[in-house]
């Protein structure tokens, strides 16, 4: 039995991985570095959402930036409104765009609670409606990917174009960090780091449980052969819409976190390159593995920050070439190497035990 497929070993790996990450602020004093590491956590959550949708569900989503960006805009609007008061009811950029009162679109965001809920609900609802329409019509595979790309570019241009409401290409830069009652979430603090990490842990656990549930099993069956699943009595469109929407919800959470960390959002979050790089993270790390995808995001974004300065011009060239190699030779990503290494190890031990073991005895052993 390959240790890689052992569910207990997988939980153990998550535990070690996250304990290690949780300990980082204890040794890192540099708050700017911590802030940067926190944003990696956000990217990790995005990669996780891609892994759920694409790795497990087989639905390639090239427009995850929609959910991320809408979530980010919602959060930015909420944080911006926290800096406005009765004497100064409108964000400054609106005055520059000659609006004379706060637009209706912005009013709900005056209430922090409502604003944060909207920041999560709007993108999720979008995924539900768009996914529902597409999957019911049985648009799938490359065609669905293209449609997500088209929707992404439509949203990007729309937000760019609604200058008086969104400040166009400049985006929104809330002047103060997020307050929740008395509490202020300083983006340059261990608290912010642990908040992001905590939510990433929750997301990972939920996602992992989901893949282990019957829902996850059916979704993986759909990835293999959607047509066959229909004849077993499952509504494929329902399952596809569900996994796409859940994945979009995770991306929306990531979008909210990202704005609290950077205090900035712009139409650049709707760039196709950004959405496609999420797919690259998951693809290089290993789309079929939640941890592989998260690790891929850390690896690529980390490399981009540290090598990027030195190789600024060639970075995308290297990344593109590396990605081509992974797609061509390592469809399971870098984590696939771990899988085959552990598989070889397992086989060797299997031979020592005298070869074939009856299937019933091949249950996971604790402590493996």
């Amino acid at each position, binding site marked *: 039995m390959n240790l890689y497929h052992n569910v207990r070993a997988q939980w153990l790996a998550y535990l070690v991985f996250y304990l290690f990450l949780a300990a980082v602020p204890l040794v890192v004093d540099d708050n700017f570095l911590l802030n940067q590491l926190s944003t990696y956590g956000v990217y990790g959550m995005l990669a996780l959402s891609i892994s759920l949708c694409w790795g497990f569900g*087989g639905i*390639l989503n090239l427009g995850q930036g929609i959910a991320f960006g809408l979530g980010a805009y919602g959060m930015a609007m909420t944080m911006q409104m926290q800096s406005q008061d009765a004497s100064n009811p409108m964000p400054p950029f609106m005055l520059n765009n000659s609006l004379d009162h706060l637009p209706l679109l912005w009013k709900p965001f005056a209430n922090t609670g409502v604003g944060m809920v909207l920041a999560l609900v709007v993108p999720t609802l979008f995924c539900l409606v*768009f996914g529902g*329409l*597409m999957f*019911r*019509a*049985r*648009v799938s*595979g*490359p*065609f669905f*990917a*293209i*449609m997500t*790309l*088209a*929707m992404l*570019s*439509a*949203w990007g*241009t*729309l937000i*760019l*174009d609604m200058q008086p409401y969104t400040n166009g290409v400049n985006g929104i830069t809330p002047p103060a960090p997020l307050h929740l009652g008395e509490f202020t979430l300083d983006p340059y603090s261990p608290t912010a780091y642990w908040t992001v990490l905590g939510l990433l842990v929750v997301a990972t656990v939920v996602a992992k449980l989901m893949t282990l549930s019957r829902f996850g099993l059916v979704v993986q069956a759909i990835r293999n052969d959607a*047509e066959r699943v229909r004849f077993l009595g499952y509504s494929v469109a329902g399952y596809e819409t569900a996994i796409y929407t859940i994945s979009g919800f995770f991306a929306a959470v990531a979008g909210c976190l990202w704005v609290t960390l950077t205090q900035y959002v712009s139409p650049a979050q709707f760039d*196709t390159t950004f959405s*496609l790089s999420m*797919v690259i993270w998951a*693809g290089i790390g290993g789309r079929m593995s939640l941890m592989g995808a998260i690790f891929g995001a850390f690896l690529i974004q980390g490399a981009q920050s540290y090598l990027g300065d030195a190789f600024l*011009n*060639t970075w*995308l*060239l290297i*990344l*593109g*070439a590396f*990605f*081509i190699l992974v*797609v*061509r030779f390592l*469809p399971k990503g870098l984590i696939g190497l771990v899988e085959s290494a552990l598989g070889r190890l397992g086989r060797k031990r299997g031979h020592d035990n005298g070869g074939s073991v009856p299937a019933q005895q091949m249950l996971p052993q604790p402590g493996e």
Partner: protein
Amino acid sequence: MTAGSFFTSFDLSAFINALILGISIASIWLIAALGLTIIYGAAGVINMAHGEFIMLGAYSSYMLQSSFGLPFALCVPASFLIVAAVGLIIERGLIRYLYKRPLDTLLATFGVSLVLMQGVRLLFGSDPKYIAVPPAFSSNIQFAFINISVFRVVVLLVTIAATVALWALFYRTRFGVQVRAVMQDKEMAASFGVNADRVYMLTFALGAGLAGLAGSLFGVLNIVLPTMGAAYVVQAFLVVVVGGGTLAGSVAAGGATGELQSIFAYFTNDTFARFVLFVLIVVFLRIRPQGLFAPSAKRR
């Protein structure tokens, strides 16, 4: 939001100009989509590097013109050949290993697009380049209240010529019969002695060449930049998706979407028109997911 302004601002001559502009937009989208259509139609490959092939076409024309002083009329076919050769190399080196994994070809070609875009940026820099055309092309045609630039008419004519040539290739030559046989059923075609591998290779090169041809024209319509491909590729994809991956479908879809874009833009503005058009396409696919003219699906 436009119902009120509709009656007050409706102006027939401007509207007819918008319709004519629509034809021009349609021809641009169609020629951008032609290469994509035949690559998708014949081999089922979604080529994400198509935009970069267009960009390469523009840079080829720029280079031939500025370094070798080639006249523009010769740059266009030369760009076709150069980009077709690039396409051929990429097909042989990468794509042919991935035909059985459609989503992976999409991703691999995305990797290719990154490499091409960054490679061109390293070679030529990020500053815009311009392609010069004979002065006759840069004027406008005035006819009563109709006003359109000569070069847009040139693009329209090239698009029509390329479409007719493709149609003739597919329906009037032996190669065309082979391509259509492979499209219908690869195994069956192979058993009749059609070399599917060679058909895929040549279609991919042809599709890339068409992108190069489009690029050399777009380089004149707009400035030449390493990132210019992205501006055309989404529309080109939509034309293929709405058309269903056939040549006739792409012609109809290109015409319809281009015209609608121009009409919506007449009543609102360019970006809002684009948003409405995309939403309409989503709704259209809900009703007709296989596109306008789809080949019948293979039975299990």
